[in-house]
């Protein structure tokens, strides 16, 4: 499987947030497609290429919410970092929680970055702009492939 996917996997259960994040991506003119899954189990199924995602393309970045149905973002992260090469996928946590226990655990489990969802849309746009510049343009990618 190739490592040259350009999609962003957005793991987010709040439909309003999905809409706002997509809108912010539009505002910043990011062309990368956004794939949305709504809970932790779906995220793992997608990344593992299980049904119904057998034909999926690996993303170049995972935007991960923490408080998710079925499996939390922390659990997804823990699972991901145990995979042999998938573990190299950069994960940016994007969540509402700024509790230090959440932040610390996310880094302990191997998060690459931790962003707190801002309330104002303008701030979200600024955040997405920086995210695009750093993670989608500047950042050098590792080889990520299936076994």
């Amino acid at each position: 499987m190739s490592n040259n996917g350009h999609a962003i996997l957005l793991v987010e259960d709040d439909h309003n947030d999905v809409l706002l994040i997509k809108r912010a991506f539009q505002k910043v003119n990011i062309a990368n497609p956004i794939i949305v899954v709504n809970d932790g189990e779906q995220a793992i199924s997608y990344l593992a290429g299980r049904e119904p995602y057998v034909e999926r393309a690996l993303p170049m970045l995972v935007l991960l919410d923490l408080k998710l149905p079925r499996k939390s973002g922390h659990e997804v992260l823990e699972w991901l970092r145990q995979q042999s090469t998938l573990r190299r996928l950069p994960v940016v946590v994007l969540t509402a929680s700024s509790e230090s226990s959440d932040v610390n655990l996310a880094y302990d489990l191997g998060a690459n970055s931790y962003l707190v969802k801002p309330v104002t849309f303008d701030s979200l746009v600024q955040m997405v702009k920086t995210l695009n510049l750093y993670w989608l343009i500047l950042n050098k990618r590792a080889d990520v492939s299936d076994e």
Partner: protein
Amino acid sequence: MRDEDKTREQLLKELIELRRQIVAHSIEGRLREEYKKIKESEEKYRGLFQNSNDAIFIIDMSGKILDVNQKFLDLFVYSKAEILSARMPEFVESDEQEKYQAAFQKIAGDGSATFEIDFKKKNGDCFPAEVSSSIFTLNGVEVIQGIVRNISERKRAEEEFSKYRKHLEEFVAQRTDQLEAVNKELESFAYSVSHDLRAPLRAMEGFASALLEDYKDRLDAVGQDYARRVVSAAQHMDTLIQDLLAYSRLSRSALKPSAVNLDSVLGEVMHQFNTEIQKIGAQIRVERPLPEVMGDHATLVQVLSNLLSNAIKFVQPGVRPMVKIWAEEKNGKVRLWVEDTGIGIAPEYHDRVFRIFERLQGVETYPGTGVGLAIVKKGLERMGGQAGVESAPGRGSKFWVELRTKGF
């Protein structure tokens, strides 16, 4: 001189001496006095024995009772005649006989012993007693004398005390469990406040902003004003939630004061306010170096950023804020001052401004939540310090926080 004469002379001398002595002290009188003294002494000791507040017994080495005092009779409710025909073990509770024998052996061996034992009264009632006894010689025969103290009261008090202590321990354990549960609940509450309550706010703010942008041409001025009000209300509520969270986190998390460099704290705060300071053209003067204090770094950052934010916010419209920050060290304490050129606070409000949700100005004029100074006060309390203000309307404010100097 002849021998005979010598003896006679001698005898005469002795006779004279004897007579002198008899004249000087009446031997008979002295004897009488000695007898009286002995009698007084005997009476005194008998009195001590008889009237003692403790029950006293004297037994021989076989355990036979030789004498007891009145208190002993009162305690055991026997007549003297009944007692004098008895042996000591007869008064010991049947389950305690072995213990009595052991104690008796100890007295015989060591010469004395103090022990606790249960005695039996004539009516069969038992009572716990403390006995201290020792061997002494009476008329050339070894006997044992002992003092019996009824310790029922003490025993009851001890039991009561241990019962109370046990109860207290259980109570404390139970309360601790409850508090831990409450604390856990508060934490999860704070979590859900920070996470779940802010999600709808993002939607309100985000979509109202979207209306303003994407539907601007189809919204008239009133419609746009409404949408802007939704945006600003959502933003205000977000600030409120964040402030409340910060306040509640301060109340529940344990702070371990350690040495904190105020220069580095202030550096962090200034960095945080950099953009805003430049935007409004505020002038901040800090008298460095600032000393080290005993506190918590993160809490101090929060406290100082709240004070600085107030100092540059509460100024007359159009006035360029000027803030001076310096520290005083006295008696092992550091007082950090934040002085502004703002609108000032009337003395009657100096206490009130530190209460949560207390605001002196309308949100329209000076936006805020009324939590900032409450965080300052709570934060200082949690670090074992204090906070206060000196101010008058139109004369600016001097806020201070006081903490222990590093090492104190």
